[in-house]
């Protein structure tokens, strides 16, 4: 069942909901580290300033809600890709390959 919930954090067993100090807030705190060095510095400063951290955690909760609907959507897209390929007929080359392997086996 995990498979069907790969994106929906809260329903996966053994995982904390994406609130508070979960991966979501980590992501936000580390935010922009790659694309924007200045933002990364700001984020580092926030780690050391409790007043800014409070504001950050308020945003994090709102972002967490958006995150979850977005992640549910991403999960559907991931499964759609996967299932789309699963539904394709088995290419002939594999059928022939397995037949050849089986025939070789029988000759032994």
């Amino acid at each position, binding site marked *: *069942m*995990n*498979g*069907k*919930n*790969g*994106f929906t*954090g809260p329903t996966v067993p*053994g*995982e904390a909901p994406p609130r508070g100090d979960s*991966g*979501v807030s*980590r*992501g*936000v705190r*580390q*935010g*922009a*580290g*790659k*694309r*924007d060095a200045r*933002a*990364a510095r700001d984020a580092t400063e926030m780690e050391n300033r409790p007043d800014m951290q409070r504001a950050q955690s308020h*945003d994090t909760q*709102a*972002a967490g809600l*958006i*995150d979850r*609907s*977005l*992640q549910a*959507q*991403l*999960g559907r*897209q*991931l*499964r*759609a*890709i*996967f*299932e789309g*390929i*699963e*539904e*394709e007929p*088995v*290419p002939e*080359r*594999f*059928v022939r*390959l*397995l*037949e050849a*392997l*089986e025939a070789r*086996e*029988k000759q*032994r």
Partner: protein
Amino acid sequence: MNVHSGPLKQALLGLIPNLRAFAVSLCGDVERADDLVQETLLKAWNHLESFQEGTNLRAWLFTILRNTYFSDCRRRRREVEDREGKKAAELAIHPGQQGHLDMQDFRRALNLLPPDQREALVLVGAAGFSYEEAASVSGCAVGTIKSRVNRARTKLTEMLGVNTPREFGPDSSTEAIVARTAGGTRLP
């Protein structure tokens, strides 16, 4: 295995759609995926003695396929990066039809994830493996799989979040939050 080759062939045939889906999700390229599946089938057939009967044949095949993929990647890392860079550029220039756009974006973002994160996400999020099974397929700790899945989710959210804020409300404050969330996490 001689006596079992008939049932084995049937079992392998039955698992091919699943293997192909895994391979395509993993490497983002149908042609290469089918080469991976072919190599996996050959290896499985020729090394059946190393398969422990009664254990999960699907997990065993997935393990062979991902090991093949990752050693392949190491061997031709440069070539792959060039090709995927080109592919990403093509998608950016030709986004395709409107209804298709989101899925194209998603595919591109998925392909841009680090391969180990993409693998963990596909195993758990699409192929239906538990964290424990995924860890055994990938040959790593359960905690590693969990953190890879989390990082993959975060990164996809960052990459795609900025493109879809209106789905969650058109007001500018929401967009500001989405933009901030999408700011980017450092690559590991």
